């Protein structure tokens, strides 16, 4: 399990989630994104292409981050959800809260 952060040439922060996003590591992701927000970044993509599963604490962190980024005039997009994760977002109605694209590249193009 690890989180990677990189910035594309237009300044969008792309966060990769490898493994799982759960109660035991959600604070690490939150802190990394909040640090980037504090440093001035405003556009974020979280890429789940290498993510196995997300629990409700992980979902909660995404909701919390989305609010904090919006409060700063920014935007958070999600990408790369597999079929099971997509279903999870639909069941919880979180697909109505987030802009979700098939790939990180599509998310970047949509900014």
């Amino acid at each position, binding site marked *: 399990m690890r989180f990677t952060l990189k910035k594309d040439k237009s300044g969008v922060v792309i966060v990769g989630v490898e493994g*799982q996003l*759960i*109660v*035991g590591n959600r604070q690490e992701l939150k802190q990394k994104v909040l640090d980037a927000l504090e440093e001035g970044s405003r556009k974020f993509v979280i890429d789940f292409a290498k993510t196995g599963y*997300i629990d*409700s604490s992980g979902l909660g962190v995404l*909701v919390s981050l989305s609010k904090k980024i919006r409060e700063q005039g920014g935007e958070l997009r999600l990408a790369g959800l597999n079929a*099971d994760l997509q279903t999870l977002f639909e069941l919880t*109605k979180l697909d109505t*809260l987030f802009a979700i694209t098939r790939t990180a590249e599509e998310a970047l193009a949509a900014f």
Partner: protein
Amino acid sequence: MSLRLDVTRDSMRLDVPSDLGMVGDAVELVASHVPPGTLSPRRISFNLRTALAEALGNAIRYGTGEDPERVVRVRVELGSDYVRIYVIDDGQGFDTGRVPDPTLPHHVERDYGRGLFVIRHLVDDVAFNEKGNGICLTLRAG
């Protein structure tokens, strides 16, 4: 702190210290010892892992208060076409009937309150003991 899984042909036993940082390793340990063919690989890799992480996270946060001196017990029955997982803490339990629907429009933007809802959608059957400090998750083949 290391985890020790006791495995027999039809059961597993694991005591997990009340530390949220142990949830991921505990889930991997159990999921990786489910015999091939019991459940589909997809149900093991997503449904079982997510539901067990939820149950363990709830037990550690709310049941044992993240007190590392306490443990959460995981007991697993392995059937030919089902897996039944018990997660039991030594806390006071909670009223499972008083969990609001997280999909209501005024709840969707909350960053909490989805755990039980998620579990109910991922497994075939959910049951609680009378005290509310033990949950039983059943996943069936198919």
